[in-house]
């Protein structure tokens, strides 16, 4: 970080300010109804319902242990809820999740990033993002090993897609750098790049800005907004930084002890008494 950036942090600079987003938020594409999830006696989620509309940025917030990450894990098939349904719009119809595994979720166009970065540390940025194309590769192992025409064509095509993402997220300078040598903020960006490489319809971001400094947060906000605007990707994100959430999301779900206590636009959430109590504490 340059000294100027350090001063920027000290001074009055607020989080990124998005301009009016001229994009059309569509009909719901993901609907969560009365979902409950328990680990033994611990009730992680209780009777949670909400929906996600096409092309919107939907935030899930809540204090520690509120069940945010569990919710995200349910959405991409890592956990299977004991009760309730989750429906995803596929083409004209709806597809209901039963025992969906993460692999299937990925095939249906749901990609995600992780709270604790889950990249291949010894591989280069380029190779890491390339792994995001995995599901799109058709050539067989033998074709790839022998570098047959189809494998070659595919490789070029995927490389092009990856390069476009590299360009989009402005990480050209670290293309060939092993991920383990990068600072944290850049690793987060690489993880976003890998998720984007799958060309997802829905992108799940688990605390994309945790542990970042203000400058890195602003960059990340800009990239999330850009992804949403440029590719029309629907984004569901978990975030602790309230400033960020209020600035970039269209609608917010608030969880507390596994229950939904609020749902609405950032403005509505700000005025919601239950949310204020949960966050600021309330005298009894």
């Amino acid at each position, binding site marked *: 970080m*340059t*000294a100027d950036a*350090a*001063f920027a942090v000290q*001074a009055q600079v607020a989080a990124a300010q998005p301009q009016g987003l001229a994009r059309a938020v569509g009909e719901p594409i993901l609907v969560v109804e009365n979902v409950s999830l328990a680990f033994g006696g611990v009730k992680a989620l209780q009777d949670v319902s909400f929906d996600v509309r096409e092309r919107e940025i939907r935030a899930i917030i809540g204090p520690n242990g509120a069940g945010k990450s569990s919710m995200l894990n349910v959405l991409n098939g890592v956990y299977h809820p004991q009760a309730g349904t989750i429906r995803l719009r596929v083409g004209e119809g709806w597809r209901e999740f039963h025992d969906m595994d993460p692999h299937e979720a990925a095939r249906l166009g749901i990609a995600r990033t992780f709270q604790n970065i889950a990249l291949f540390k010894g591989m280069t940025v380029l190779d890491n993002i390339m792994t995001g194309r995995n599901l799109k590769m058709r050539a067989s192992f033998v074709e790839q090993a022998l570098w047959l025409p189809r494998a070659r064509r595919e490789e070029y095509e995927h490389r092009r897609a990856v*390069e476009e993402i590299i360009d989009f997220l402005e990480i*050209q300078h670290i293309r060939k750098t092993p991920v383990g040598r990068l600072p944290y903020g850049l690793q987060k960006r690489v993880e976003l790049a890998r998720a984007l490489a799958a060309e997802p319809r829905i992108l799940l971001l688990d605390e994309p800005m945790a542990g970042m400094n203000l400058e890195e947060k602003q960059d990340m906000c800009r990239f999330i907004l850009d992804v949403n605007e440029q590719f029309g990707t629907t984004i569901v994100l978990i975030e602790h930084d309230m400033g960020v959430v209020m600035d970039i999301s269209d609608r917010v779900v608030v969880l507390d002890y596994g229950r939904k206590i609020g749902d609405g636009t950032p403005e509505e959430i700000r005025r919601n008494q239950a949310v204020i109590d949960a966050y600021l504490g309330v005298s009894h």
Partner: protein
Amino acid sequence: MPEKLDGLDTFPKLLLYHARERGERPAVREKALGIWQTWTWRQYADEVRVLAAGLAAAGFARGDHLAIVGDNRPRLYAAMCAAQCLGGIPVPLYQDAVAAEMAFPIQNAEIAFAVVEDQEQVDKLLEILPRCPTLRRIWYDDPRGMRHYAQRELAPYERLLQEGRAANARDPGFVETEIAKGSGEDTAAMFFTSGTTGNPKGVVLTHRALIDRARVAAEMEGLSDRDVVLAYLPPAWIGQNIFSYAQPFVTGYCICCPESAETVMTDMREIGPTYYFAPPRVLEALLTQVSIRMEDAGRVKRALYEYFMALAQRVGGAILEGRPVGLADRLRYWLGDLLVYGPLRNVLGMSRVRLAYTAGEAIGPDLFKFYRSIGINLKQLYGSTETSVFVCVQPDGAVKPDTVGPPVAGVELKFTPERELLIRSPGLFKEYYKNPQATLEAKDAEGWFHTGDAGYLDADGHLKIIDRVKDVGRLADGTLFAPKYLENKLKFFPYIKEAVCFGHGRDRVCAFVNIDMEAVGNWAEKRNMPYSGYVDLASRDEVYELVRECIERVNADLAAEPELANSQIHRFLILHKELDADDEELTRTRKVRRRFIAEKYAPLVEALYSGRDSVHVEARVRYEDGRTGTISADLKIRDAKTFAPAAAKRAA
């Protein structure tokens, strides 16, 4: 060698010539999506023809100015040439300038048309649009993020091309006819000098001046169409423009545009330029990086590096110049080249560099020697925007580090009694745009350009520049005080990024210092010293101690130079912020604006001379987006040891 170019008196004519003579040779390369893409000279000429037709269709006429804002991009260079085809004048502006700084040139030249790189530049122009009523059309190269911009001034570069194609189809001979109308006496381009004082001035240069200088220098150095250059400095700077526009147009060599500012090092290694140009600050930054990496290296490597660098210091320069060196040293140097210098040149991306120039500012002698000692033919060059760069160049085989070499062919030099350098050359500028007063002050009736630099010719006829005339001062006891000379000595230490020395009319010299965040940060990490940021690091006692050692080594050096022994630095402080062009403390080419700094930080200067050991400071800072804020800090002031003058000692 440049071929017969008689009659080719403008850049567009040269472009058509290369498209005919070497149509399939590369002219411009740019890395897009990770792969180098090439424009041949023929493609370059085709693009320019279409663009010129498009500009004409949009109403761009002979004598109009075209603002060009952006990094080194093939399309922006094509736009420069397209304007020239129509007898128009491209005005490249610094891409990192804040919006307010762009208003003056646009108002001054009543610019109506602009071709810019991306959204960032568009935003800046839109911001100043209300103050620049003449600006009618803005074309942007990169459409990213531009989807929701509805301003009627805006259009993508592609649209300009489409309109150009349509216009060319209607009237195929139009552009060629326009090109033929041009003459060498036409204005080729206008560069706004950053200037260390006052408003910028538009320097008007003709085709003849630029082509003459570019050609004379290319002939002298034997440049050919096999050379390759990496274009990585701001195109609004005359230096970059000469190397990536004027000289390739004269010799037909290829320029390469890096992917982004961060990838320059990688791109440099991939391209392997043969002809390289860097201002001292870039060379300094490279050396700092090397030093940092060597500090991190294992013991054996470090010992090897130290041994062979000491050897290089001793004999490297002589070997490069072909002067006699003992056989044992030659063998050792050969071994060093195998183990250290070769790999080092490779890391720097300079393995193929045949000719490297540095200019823009005086270079520290040690820094200069470092590059030459590892076998890179780095030479100093003296010139300015007003002289189309080439005034003096160090000749191969006779490089004297403390001079900038003898004048190039066609240049006459003379000096005023105040030691100010005057120049007469075919490369001189025509005038300062709409500023006859300034033109008159800078260029007298006999055509001598007053440089404002103080210097003299040494016994071999090499030019030695001391400092700016207005900056050369005297200490209270009347001895010479050349601040830049001291500052350059300080800046050679990797830990010191910038320094400003005071002393004119005072009894002793004191200094402001900016630490180099990267180098000092690394140094602190090694010592397990936690710090939160620049301000914190800059105020550490350990860091003050580190800087004090550097200053004392400079003082020891100065003590050995009779004329400058009194300029030893007695007291110093480390500034709480980095000097920045956005705060007007540096010019866009990163020269310190001494007077401005002295005024802005007057209380600090007073504190240095008052004997206090700390001072409180509050300062306004300007962020990149143009907003301002204040910061405050308590700065420490420390003394540095000075040494008795060596000459005096010897005399005693």
